[in-house]
């Protein structure tokens, strides 16, 4: 398991380099990369996001991410998990987060990766502050993110 919170950028090649060290039982690797988007909130919103500052809770962040990886490994057959999340000041097009799962079969890798990403959005203590052309503002949590993670909780209840 590779869990990191860092200022530095990351290269996607680290995923294949890391998983190659983990043996030849891996048959499927899924990676998700989140980027800073230069979006406008509303069609009539003229504010452009010029930069993003990511704050986190050192210590708790790492333990939450480790727990998410453990939860995913307990729900699906995953050989390995990589989670890397950047903090500090980032700009449109920059990498923010990388989640990668390795499994014998693709379905476990797909599900594990999506579960970790959906759960990270609502449980890992990171906060985004946008610098826009009209000033700075903290990003509000989205109900749609909670709905995504609730689907996994419902699914878990059915499995039980």
């Amino acid at each position: 398991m590779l869990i990191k919170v860092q200022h530095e950028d990351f290269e996607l090649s680290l995923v294949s380099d890391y998983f190659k060290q983990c043996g030849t039982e891996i048959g499927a690797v899924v990676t998700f990369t989140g980027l800073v988007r230069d979006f406008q909130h509303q069609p009539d919103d003229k504010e452009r996001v010029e930069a993003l500052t990511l704050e986190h809770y050192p210590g708790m962040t790492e333990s939450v991410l480790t727990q998410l990886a453990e939860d995913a490994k307990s729900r699906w057959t995953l050989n390995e998990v990589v989670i890397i999340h950047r903090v500090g000041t980032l700009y449109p097009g920059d990498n923010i987060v990388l989640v990668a799962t390795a499994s014998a079969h693709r379905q476990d890798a797909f599900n594990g990766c999506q579960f970790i990403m959906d759960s990270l959005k609502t449980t890992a203590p990171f906060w985004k502050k946008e610098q826009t052309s009209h000033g700075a503002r903290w990003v509000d949590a989205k109900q749609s993110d909670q709905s995504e993670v609730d689907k996994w909780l419902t699914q878990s209840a059915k499995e039980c």
Partner: protein
Amino acid sequence: MINVLFFAKYREQLNTDSLQLDADFSSVESLIDVLKTKGDTWQQVFSQSGLMVAVNQQMAKLNSALKDGDEVAFFPPVTGG
């Protein structure tokens, strides 16, 4: 001694990232009651519906018990990823 931490929007609104309190608190709720007496901004921050709390870096609830030496963190809903 309780170590209290504030993050993100709350850190900015309260103009502090941490404080140490000597008093004993039976629960998170009783700590909040005292913090609310520190002024209008404190009252406002600790009345927000999205308030999240962690005790010793684990998510907690308003009725979670506190003991001497605990680290209590208050923060708004998370927005990483």
